[in-house]
């Protein structure tokens, strides 16, 4: 009897180990850590505070659907690098804020707060095209010094990479995400002054600066 009990226990342990192995075998983890080039172009005459929340800096997209393997995609560090680089070069001065809305430094024209709204991806076997595709959507918020909303706009980014020989799914997806993040940076940089509220805000600031210059010349 003891031999049977011992055998059953061993079998159940082995089955439990096998179940864990099978479950973890289908889980994919991607950690994106890109560096991005500094944009070339004109700077807006604004002093802005940039607040990247902890959720944003450590953003991980997790997906566990029946029709797909489990995926955990961490884009936090890469998108932090991107937004710091792009926003840091877009304005006359950009100050990184460790907290918001309390303890704001004086003299800020705007505070910019990005949030990830959505991340989606497709694999080659799903689309029958030999391309990994990624879409990321950001909600962008701009507030004035008092905390009132100045503008809200959406940035959509798209990235793709062809399947490559001997490249893992994780590596290919990370590459597509980096392409999407570059696209997000490009849209942020080129689209900022096209948001109507921000266009008016920049025009007012420019007018105020030129009046200030004219008064100081007199």
């Amino acid at each position, binding site marked *: 009897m003891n031999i049977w009990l011992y055998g059953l226990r061993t079998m159940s342990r082995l089955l439990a180990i096998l179940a864990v192995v099978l479950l973890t075998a289908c889980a994919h983890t991607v950690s994106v850590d890109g560096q991005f080039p500094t944009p070339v172009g004109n700077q807006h005459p604004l002093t802005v505070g940039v607040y990247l929340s902890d959720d944003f800096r450590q953003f991980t997209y997790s997906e566990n659907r029946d029709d797909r393997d489990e995926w955990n995609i961490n884009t936090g560090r890469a998108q932090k690098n991107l937004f710091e680089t792009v926003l840091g070069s877009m304005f006359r001065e950009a100050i990184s804020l460790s907290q918001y809305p309390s303890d704001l430094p004086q003299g800020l024209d705007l505070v910019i707060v990005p949030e990830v709204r959505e991340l989606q991806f497709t694999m080659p076997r799903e689309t029958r095209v030999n391309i990994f595709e990624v879409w990321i959507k950001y909600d962008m918020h701009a507030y004035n010094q008092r905390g009132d909303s100045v503008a809200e706009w959406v940035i959509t980014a798209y990235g*793709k990479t062809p399947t490559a020989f001997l490249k893992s799914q994780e590596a290919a997806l990370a590459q597509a995400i980096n392409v999407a993040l570059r696209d997000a940076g490009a849209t942020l940089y080129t689209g900022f002054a096209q948001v109507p509220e921000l266009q008016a805000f920049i025009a007012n600031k420019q007018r105020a600066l030129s009046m200030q210059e004219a008064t100081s010349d007199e």
Partner: protein
Amino acid sequence: MKPLINLAAPLLLAAAALSVGGCTTVVIDEYRRSTGELAVGDSVVILGRRHSSEYETEPDLIDCVGDTLHSPESGVNIIPEQQFVDALYPWFEPRKAPMHIKSLSKLMDIPDVRDRMEQYGVKYIVWIDGSTETTSSAGSIGCSISTAGAGCFGFGTWDKESDYEASVWDFRDQELSGKISADAQGTSYMPAIVVPIPLIARVQNNACKGMAAQLREFLLPPQSASR
């Protein structure tokens, strides 16, 4: 020693097959509006179009054309694609890159962008659009392992087609200098008798070489192209 001798023949066959490869045909067409005017200190940048969601101009094709063309001693200085795209971020990103020469002149209204382009000495921007695809495949190969040994038997074949078009923009004169198209197709074979013997048609590589050779003639002034 016997198994080694048995393996030597198929391995030699495989090595010979790799050096022979499958057959490829390449057709190059050219439309020229002006003659090449590359002068000392001028640079050429070769960029891939990546705006379509259905295909992507392969970065390795762009590298191949650039590496084949790059020859400072004969006056062709190529700026690597990634270096150029990073240096002019975000203006040459897939969804932001100028699609027409008119959009390029608009981009030059930004002083920092114009300065950066002049620093690089860019004379020509070559946009390559297209891809290489496997159009059909047939046959099958089966491999098995037993106590007596391992081996593969069967026959496989596949066709590949490359279709690329290069548009040459004269950056200084802000005009389209011409276009070059490269169509290549080839069939690869893989007979397997114990060891698979790949007879690979290097379709993309041949399209690259053909396009690079034509671009060299295109970009250099007539007397220096013959050098």
